[in-house]
Every structure is written in structure tokens, then in C-alpha cells.
């Protein structure tokens, strides 16, 4: 099953490679991984989309928690959450395609952020699945390049991932 795991970690050199290295060393799969500093610049927040059996996901969260730089790990997909991904897509836009592409971008709530005589760059923020459908909707021959950020996610409502929680060695599922 697909899971979105959020990780709060020290914003230190090498912290990201510890996470990436863990996934490759233990043969866990990564669909996407995004990372950037938080409002507190000493912290980074990372979102990983992965998949695996319950046992594998349990190991992933435990192994992440074990990394010294990791402060908190939450499996966002365990409860209500929001996920978004940003895509920039450059398309060939000439003749009647120009109008059609503009309409499509509007339907998907995208913006055209760069225009030349023959190309558009469309910016689109949505769930990964929605971005996929946008790509599907365009004539494949018109796509010049795409770049996607990977998923970032956040819990709904009062579900908050904070740094002050101390007992980081305990994982969510430890006590049945």
C-alpha cells in the first residue's frame, strides 16, 4: 500500500543522505522524496512517498526514528491529510493547440507562466494523481518537458508535527 511519511529532522549537512541511504541500504522503495527547511531553519521537513506491506512500513518508520538526526516521524496516510505536488510542464503551443492547451490548463486550475511564440510553460499544483491526469489529457506529442517536485503533505486539522515531542524513540505503532 502507498504511504506518505513525514519526517522532521535536524537541518544539517548529510542528514538527507542518511535518509536516502537508509532506503537504498534496506531496499525500501521511494516514489518521491521532498525536503526543505521549516519556519524554524534548524529543522528540515521531509516527505517520502513509499509503498510496502504493513510490516515494511512499520520497519521504515522505526528505522527512520533510529537515525540520530531524525526528530519525529509520522505516517500521514494513517489519518486525514492533504497532499500536493507542483509540476511545471513545457508544451509545444502553436496554431489551434494554443487555445486548447489554455482551456485544459484552466480546467485543471493551472497557470500559464511562460509564453513564447511556440511554447507554454504550465504550472500546476495538485495531488500526484491529478498531475498524471493532466499529462494524460494532453497529446503526448506536444509535451516538451516536465518537472515535478514530488509530494509534500500535511495532516488535516489539529494533527501537527512538532519538534518539541521528546520521546522520539517510540513509534506510533509500538504499543498495540
Amino acid at each position, binding site marked *: 500500500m502507498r504511504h506518505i511519511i513525514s519526517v522532521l529532522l535536524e537541518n544539517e*549537512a*548529510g542528514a538527507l543522505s542518511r535518509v536516502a*541511504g537508509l532506503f537504498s541500504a534496506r531496499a525500501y522503495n521511494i516514489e518521491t522524496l521532498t525536503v526543505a527547511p521549516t519556519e524554524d531553519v534548524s529543522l528540515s521537513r521531509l516527505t517520502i512517498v513509499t509503498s510496502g506491506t504493513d510490516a515494511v512500513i512499520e520497519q521504515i518508520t*522505526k*528505522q527512520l526514528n533510529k537515525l540520530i538526526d531524525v*526528530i519525529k516521524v509520522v505516517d500521514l496516510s494513517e489519518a486525514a491529510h492533504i497532499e500536493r505536488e507542483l509540476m511545471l510542464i513545457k508544451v509545444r503551443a502553436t496554431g489551434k493547440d494554443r487555445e486548447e492547451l489554455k482551456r485544459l490548463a484552466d480546467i485543471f486550475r493551472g497557470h500559464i507562466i511562460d509564453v513564447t511564440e511556440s511554447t507554454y510553460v504550465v504550472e500546476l499544483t495538485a495531488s500526484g494523481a491529478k498531475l498524471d491526469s493532466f499529462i494524460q489529457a494532453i497529446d503526448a506529442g506536444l509535451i516538451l518537458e516536465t518537472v515535478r517536485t514530488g509530494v509534500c503533505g500535511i495532516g488535516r486539522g489539529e494533527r501537527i508535527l512538532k519538534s518539541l515531542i521528546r520521546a522520539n524513540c*517510540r513509534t506510533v505503532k*509500538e*504499543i498495540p
Partner: protein
Amino acid sequence: MTMMTGAEIVIRCLQEEKVEYVFGYPGGSVLHIYDALFKQDQIKHILVRHEQAAVHAADGLARSSHKVGVALVTSGPGATNAVTGIATAYMDSVPLVVISGQVPNAYIGQDAFQECDTVGITRPCVKHNFLVNDVHQLAVTMKKAFYIANSGRPGPVVVDIPKDVTAAKCKFEYPETIQMRSYNPVIKGHLGQIRKAVHLLLEAKRPMIYSGGGAILSNGAEQLTRLTRRLGFPITNTLMGLGAYPGTDRQFLGMPGMHGTVEANLAMQHCDVLLAIGARFDDRVIGNPDNFSSLPRKIIHVDIDPSSISKRVKVDVPIVGNVPDVLEEMLRLLDAGNASPDPEVLAAWWHEIEEWRAKQCMKYRMKKSIIMPQYVMEKLYEVTGGKAIVTSDVGQHQMWAAQYYKFDEPRRWLNSGGLGTMGVGLPYAMGAALQHPEMQVACVTGEGSIQMCIQELSTAKQFRLPIKIINLNNRYLGMVRQWQEMFYGSRYSESYMDSLPDFVKLAEAYGHVGMRIEKPEDVEPALRKAFIEHKDDLVFMDFITDQKANVFPMVAAGKGLADMILTEDL
């Protein structure tokens, strides 16, 4: 406060941590540190002959005590040579601080002379590592390194220090304690879980205790022994856990696993409640996990590392906590409830176990003119009164040492269980001999393994370490030969050890005493001579042993624990 150089700060930190021995090898990027070492006499430096041995020796010191082992190596090849030692310690959760020199900050990334990405190379085999770019961070990083290495589930920590940082100056201030928001190991177990566990243990009809290296690393042997005696349950200790419970006690069933006893393996397999303590259900211990899980049994697992729990086998009652604290709490609950297991139920279970034990699975047949390796181990046990620190390398000799030397106390048996690193035996013995000058230290090895760190005979001479090397010389990479005999139609591909050196002359060339022992009747006298007459010498005992001897019982890789191959000798 006076200003100190980074190099002086490194040494001061080691002094603050009460480090007695540093194992190391100098080179360009650590010259400032070696200079600072020269100017003091509190810390003794042990100059090894290869950086791998520096880390192994520090590791041996740590395993034989509860201290953090310390190694010091230069950048580039010094650091890469240390990697096997670090990975070995990591797999067995041994607390180490390995300090490596690095090229100056300004040279990093330039493919400088003796530059390598030490932090990158060691990342997958350390508990944590640091690159210290700024001298102001040095003292606090050293403090963190020691704290991380020896708390929670212990492990090696690498501190990589660019040369310019060791020359730069700043004020020295060593933090008394350290707080890390991202690292807070749990100590006490969850009380509700412990209650549940005690309840299960009291209700069990066929209980079994299985403890591993964690019981020793956490200094939990005393609590483990009390709990086991209080309950009257059978117990097995893994290869890493030998000595946590007295090996000569009736409740002890021997080691489990690939070369475990019949009684330990069958009790593991057929118990209805298994109390696992500081153990990790390794493939060499439980065999095929599907086979193991196919039998109904409740598992209680006490471990400080949550990721060890339910990793290979689903656990019913997980308890994350420090072993002695959790066991103490179990004992308290038992006493408070004045509760004990039903003696009749237990007697029936013991009856079954005694029938398995009666098979005497470790009996072997003596030969008239050839020395059996098992016999050497039995005699070693007798001659040392079971009180020696025994280190081993990796192979058949390791298994025979584990099977036939009965360890009554923790931290007496040092071997590489997780990584299985040939070459650790002699450096482990060096670390142990330095840490315990009053004790007998024996290194049980094979003619293959000993040659992987043989250069350390020179170090042992320099520092007068009276190690007794017991070389079980079967002229084969015996463990490889055994698998080839059993699973590859006796095609002995590259497992014969040709062109062996004359070990007696070799020992003498290094300035030690050498002995060759070829007849069974000479085994005991030779051992006595070595341990008594040559008490203060390093003695290299080359025992010419049976080439065909195999380690039994054996559970073939991927098989269930009950599927044991027994000796055909009897």
C-alpha cells in the same frame, strides 16, 4: 580559560571521558593530534600494525568492559582500513569512538592527497558520524560522540576532523551533560506491557527464555540470572549472549541456532511462551522465519531498539526498554504478587527437555593419533578453570569454542557474531589483555583467520601482551570446507590452505614463544606449560587438528530449527 588547539582539545576530551587506551596509527592529517598526544602521559597510545586492528582492538576492549573503545586513524587509507573494524562493531552494537583525520577544509572535494569521503563511506555502518568543520564545535561533538556511542543501543561513532581544525585555536569548554532533541533513548519499559508479560510467563506451560548480546551490552546479566532462577525456566544464550547466564547451570540449555544444541533448538521451537531478551531473531538463530512462525507460541520481546522488535518475527508483547530495568520490574511484579509458575506444569516440560538433552548432541569421537579440535576446547576450559577471556576468529574453531567452553560470566567471550569478520581474534585479545592485565586471555583461531591480522604479533610484542593463541590448524578454511562437503558434493574449491607458514618459527620471529602440538596426549601438557610456565609470554600454540572434523549439530541455512543434522560419529 586558556586557548587550546583542536588537537589539544581532542586529547583533553578523551581525558575527560577517562579514556585509558587509544589504538591508532599516525599519518599526515592527524600529525597535530599525535603531537598533542606526545605532550601528555595520561592516555596511552597503542600503535597497531594495521588500522583494521586498531578498531578491532578498541572493540575488544569495549566488549570486555563497559567502556567506549577509541581508535585514531589518518585520512584516506587510514580511514578505509578502519571500515571493516567499524562495520564489525556496528553489527554487534559495540560502543566505539573512531577519530579520523581529514584533509584541510579548503581541500575537501578537491581530490586532495589522502582525501576520501569518510563520513560518506562509513555512514551505513555507524550509529552516527560527524564531520567537524569548525574548532568551536569540536568539544561538544566529542561529547555527543561518546554519549551516542554508549547510550541506547550502543554502536560506533566516527568523528572526522579536517587537519586545519586540529590546528585552529579556541577556548576549551567540555559540557558536563548533553541534551539532544533528536535522540532520547528509552530506559524504562511500559509498565502495562511488563505486566502483560509477567502474566503470560506465569500461565505458560512450556516457557523458554532466549537472551542475546543485548543482555550483556546493557549489563543485564545479573538481573537475567535472578529472573531465570526465580522462574525456574530453561534458558538459551545466543552466540553473542554467552555468559549472560552461567553456562554450567542446569537451567542453561546451551546455544541455539545453526550450531546450537538439540535441547536449545527444540525448546525454542516447541515452547508456548518465549521471552526474548536483547536478541534479534537472527537468521543464524531461528533458521527459517516462516518455519519458526508456523508454530503457535506467544513471544515477549524486550529490547532497547524498537526496530529490532517484530522485524523478522511478529511479536505479541513488545517491551522497549533497557534490559536490566525491565527485568528488575518483572522481578518486582513477581515478588509483589508472590507469584510463581506451577511447579508440576514446569516439571513436565523439564522432563521433555531432559529427554532431548539426553541425546548428548555434542559428543564426539576421539581419535588415537589425531587431535580433535573439540578436545582442545575442553582442555582449554579445564586448564583455565573456565575463567579466561576467550576471543575467537570466524569459522569452525569459533563454533567449537562457543560450544565447548562454558562461560559463567558475561564479557568473557568476544567474537564477531554479526559481521563474522575473520581476523578479529588477535586484536580482540589485545584490547582485552590491556583492559584486564590480571586475567588469562586466550585467542582461539584457525590457520586461515589468524593470517588476516597476523601482523599484530608485533604490536603484542611491543606492549608485552601475554595472549595465548590457540590455533586449531586443520589446513582448511574449515567452515567453507564443511559447507562444500555437505552442500557442494565435496568439491573443495579454494578452501585448502596451502603454503602455510611455520607458525612456530613465525611466532619466534616476532619474539614470542611458539609450540606445535600434534598428538592428543600432548594437548593438556602444552596448555599447562603455556598458561603456567609461560604465563607472562605470548604463546602461539599450533594444534594440528583433524582435517575432517565438522561442527554439529547443524541446521542448514533456510531450514527450520528442528531440522538438525547430527554427528554421524556416534
